[in-house]
């Protein structure tokens, strides 16, 4: 056991953790909007819209995240026309490609979580709102959304942890996140166990923080 290596690699890995956290927060931010949008589309009565939203979540949940990143990073650059549009500014950067892939992926899972939360809202709540003469729009924003958020908290907490682990794939498209730097140190020192303990410890610490914050929120906003 090389304690010295563990101590010297710790600051490097901690620096890379910032990249991981940036990737995570940005993709969760965009993913939440995508998820909400597709959850609403899933609840739409129009069959075509419904099928489209279902297809989206089916494809993104049925394929590995690695394929999705590779399609966006390596695949899209191949289209000649695409490279001449203004979108290319975003898509040529591995950083944004990774975030787009993560956001689309977590958006698919989030849409499923939110959809089931919307569907389990007791009809009584909506009926009560209607009988009080509240407009449909306000019922949706002030009754359905808050209840749905509260109900989806535990599942969404799991999704955040899964996404945090998913950001490690950014290292496959040249980004130096926590896993990327860990791999670099392992391949230069050939001391996998020591580096794994430090990097894994940082990941576990983040999991611990996320897990407990979600628990705290659940307690705060849960049914008493």
């Amino acid at each position, binding site marked *: 056991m090389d304690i010295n290596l563990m101590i010297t690699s710790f600051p490097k890995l901690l620096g890379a953790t910032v990249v991981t956290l940036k990737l995570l927060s940005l993709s969760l931010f965009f993913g939440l909007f995508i998820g909400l949008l597709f959850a609403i589309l899933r609840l739409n009565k129009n069959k075509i819209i419904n099928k489209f939203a279902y297809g989206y979540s*089916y*494809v993104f949940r*049925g*394929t*590995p*995240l*690695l*394929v*999705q990143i*590779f*399609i966006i990073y*390596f*695949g*899209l650059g*191949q*289209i000649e026309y695409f490279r001449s549009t203004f979108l290319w500014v975003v898509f040529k950067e591995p950083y944004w490609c990774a975030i787009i892939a993560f956001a689309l992926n977590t958006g698919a899972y989030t849409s499923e979580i939110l959809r089931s939360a919307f569907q389990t809202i007791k009809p009584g709540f909506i009926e009560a709102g209607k009988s009080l003469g509240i407009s449909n729009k306000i019922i949706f924003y002030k009754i359905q959304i808050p209840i749905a958020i509260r109900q989806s908290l535990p599942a969404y907490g799991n999704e955040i*942890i899964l996404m*945090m*682990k*998913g*950001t*490690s*794939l950014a*290292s*496959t498209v040249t980004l130096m996140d926590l*896993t990327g730097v*860990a*791999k670099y140190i*392992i*391949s230069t020192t*050939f001391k*996998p*166990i020591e580096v*794994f303990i430090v*990097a*894994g410890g940082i*990941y*576990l610490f983040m*999991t*611990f923080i996320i897990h407990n914050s979600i628990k705290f929120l659940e307690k705060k906003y849960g049914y008493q």
Partner: protein
Amino acid sequence: MGLLAFGDTGWGDELFYATLMTVAVSITAMFIGFLFALIFTPLKLSKNKFFNLIGNSYTTVIRGVPELLVIYLFFFGGSGAIMYVASIFGYNEYIEINAFVTGSFAIGIISGAYSTEVFRGAIQSIDKGQFEASQVLGLKRFVYFFRVIMPQMLRLAIPNLSNVWQITLKDTSLISVTGLVEIMRQSYIAAGSTRDPLFFYSFAAVLYLLLTFLSMKLINRLEIRYSRGF
């Protein structure tokens, strides 16, 4: 479509074998995962605090650390660890483990952590009376576990195990970093030599979708079979 031709002109046969490799790795990993679950589920359910700690740390660590990191640990550390064990027994030659073994072991350990959680949940939701009844009837431990608890546990576990299978199947794509030629690796090679990444990665996505779709159909059948009488 010429790109997918079988034989020397296209990548059809290579991708077909790569798909078989993905399925083989997934099944092996799932099986290794079951073995791990068989060891760690009793530890997690045990009343002994020390055993409990071992069981809990396994599932917490593996489920809290990215799959890719675990794979790197095995990829870079696997042969070193084996050689260390071998040197204790007096064997000092270089040992190289093949990518299939490393890959299925790494994925197997990950899948095992999820399976352990599933089995633990299933056993805990079996009616207490079942355990008590078997004790009252004086059934031998072996009979009691395999004839009473196991069938009930499987019925409760199958829907969640199908999730574990999906996770395992998708995780195998990560072994491509170790050079094992499965769907992802083969697409990478094909994309590199034809300069057509969009087509090959999209085709890889289709292959994965096909695998998840087919396995869902199969698992649904199993589910029906095991829930007879309920």
